[in-house]
């Protein structure tokens, strides 16, 4: 199966890197790597809606919450497979989380499709808040107390491998969809909806597909988050979480997968990297520096770190230029 060639190669490479992290770094850095992988999934999936389809969603955290709570509830209450196969059960739960979030994505996508730009942003923001408040009031999900002691993986390496598996599934799904006619459909909606409709593209259908696919992976990101923090409550999925996802997409470059991944790394690592500064200055300036960095990047490099290019394009550009000179 030629089709599985490069996904398997990249999975092997990622797992190798995992071995290095397992032994090279302490648990703190390892936890950070796991949070980076959750943010990667969030950024890549939102990039499909905000980056490729040009729709403006501010409710991504809502889908993440649905995924997280489904997996948490399932892992705590159901156990139809022996604990030794926990990785398999968690994989099935992650798919369930994704499907549930995708259903929510469908329900959010439908009504908000007549809306454009800021109005769509408001409706998606509204849905995010409605989901959060609904979770707050569901006692069987722990309400404000949240769900604690969510079973995770026994070793860092298992968690890491699980995350890498999902990141690659997400990456190759979106990469291949974007290289297909559906991908071109998304791009046409971003470029000019009226022209797309006249050229035979069902723009509504495209937007709903983008929402459903993107919320599926946000649900999976939520499932990973639940396993890695072992405790979730509604206040982990606020409007700021959605804004964080949008920041990653814009910072990385709208419509660039490698951009989203790079931005996910920076957005997760930067605040932690700034902690030592706190020892020098005594006060915690991390968020102040983070927000200033945000403003500077938007002014100095509006199209984001990668612009619309992928790392492969940059590689080809620099390799060709160095080869020529």
């Amino acid at each position, binding site marked *: 199966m030629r089709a599985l060639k490069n996904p398997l190669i990249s999975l092997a490479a990622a797992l190798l890197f995992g071995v290095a992290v397992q032994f090279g770094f302490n648990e703190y850095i390892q936890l950070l790597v796991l949070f980076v992988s959750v943010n990667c999934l969030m950024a890549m999936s939102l990039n499909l809606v905000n980056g490729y389809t040009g729709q403006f969603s501010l409710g991504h955290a809502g889908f993440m919450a649905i995924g997280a709570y489904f997996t948490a509830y399932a892992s705590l209450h159901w156990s139809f497979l022996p604990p030794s196969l926990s990785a398999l059960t968690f994989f099935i739960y992650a798919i369930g989380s994704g499907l549930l979030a995708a259903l929510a994505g469908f329900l959010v996508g439908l009504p908000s499709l007549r809306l454009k730009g800021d109005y769509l942003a408001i409706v998606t923001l509204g849905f995010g808040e409605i989901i959060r408040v609904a979770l707050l009031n569901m006692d069987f999900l722990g309400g404000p107390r949240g769900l604690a002691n969510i079973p995770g993986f026994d070793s860092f390496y298992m968690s890491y491998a699980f995350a890498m598996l999902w990141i690659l599934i997400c990456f190759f799904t979106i990469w291949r*969809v974007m290289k297909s*006619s559906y991908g071109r*459909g998304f791009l046409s909606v971003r470029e000019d909806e*009226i022209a797309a*409709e006249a050229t*035979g593209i069902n723009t509504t259908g495209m937007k709903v597909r983008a929402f459903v696919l993107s919320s599926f992976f946000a649900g999976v990101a939520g499932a990973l988050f639940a396993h890695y923090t072992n405790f979730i409550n509604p206040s982990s999925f606020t409007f700021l979480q959605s804004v964080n996802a949008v920041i990653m997409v814009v910072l990385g470059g709208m419509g660039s997968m490698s951009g989203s991944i790079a931005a996910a790394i920076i957005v997760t690592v930067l605040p932690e990297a700034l902690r030592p500064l706190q020892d020098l200055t005594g006060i915690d300036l991390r968020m102040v520096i983070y927000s200033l960095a945000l403003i500077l990047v938007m002014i100095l490099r509006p199209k984001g770190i990668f612009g619309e290019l992928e790392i492969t394009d940059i590689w080809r550009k620099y390799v060709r230029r160095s080869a020529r000179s």
Partner: protein
Amino acid sequence: MSDVLLEAKKITMQFGGLKAVDSVEFQIKKGQLAGLIGPNGAGKTTVFNMLTGVYQPTHGEVMLEGKSLKGLRPYQISHRGIARTFQNIRLFKGLTVLENVLIATHQHVNYGLMDTLLQTRKFIETEKALEEKAMALLEIFSLQSKAHEPASSLPYGQQRKLEIVRALATDPKIILLDEPAAGMNHSETHGLMETIAKIREQFNLTVLLIEHDMKLVMGICENIVVLDHGVKIEEGSPKHIQNSKRVIEAYLGVEETL
């Protein structure tokens, strides 16, 4: 089956009190090159938008091959076989020339999500076929050398041609051109006439043309419909239109009788 391809039956468009188009009726035969002319604000583009589903007519309906297009979204109408270009060019500027054309072929795609993910044979072959078809179309209009350039980098005349190629890629039965010659100099207009002639005989397409350039319209149209203030005031061959009193009045105003 009568040879009428596209028929407007008493179509009316009312914005609040204003009747932009008032029960206009005309028929376009298969293979015909029809023209739609009239002074500015006569309602030409509004008729165009009703034919292509951008506006739903307040009264009356549009028939394609005897089947009504009432209530259909623009993309459904495009699938039925009506393709169009826009008055001010609406290309997918950020995408390449080839991608612009490939997007128009989306309606012929028969592979699903699974085929895409697993890169099945069906997916690969369909993609290759679509690309060949698109390149062939580009070649006919000698645009294939620019296939991988962004659409926005093309000069104006070629952008207009690309828009026509994109419309052709949907395998339409009829193509509606909205002021294609607008902003074109003499030689570019001449090039356009050749393009339109090529379309008709290579794709045996029916064409409906909105245009102000009388030389172009009178030159190639077989049947012309004239609108004024949303009402059809004349229809017939170019010669008939040229000396119809009502048309002259509409365009040049009434003669001052001293």
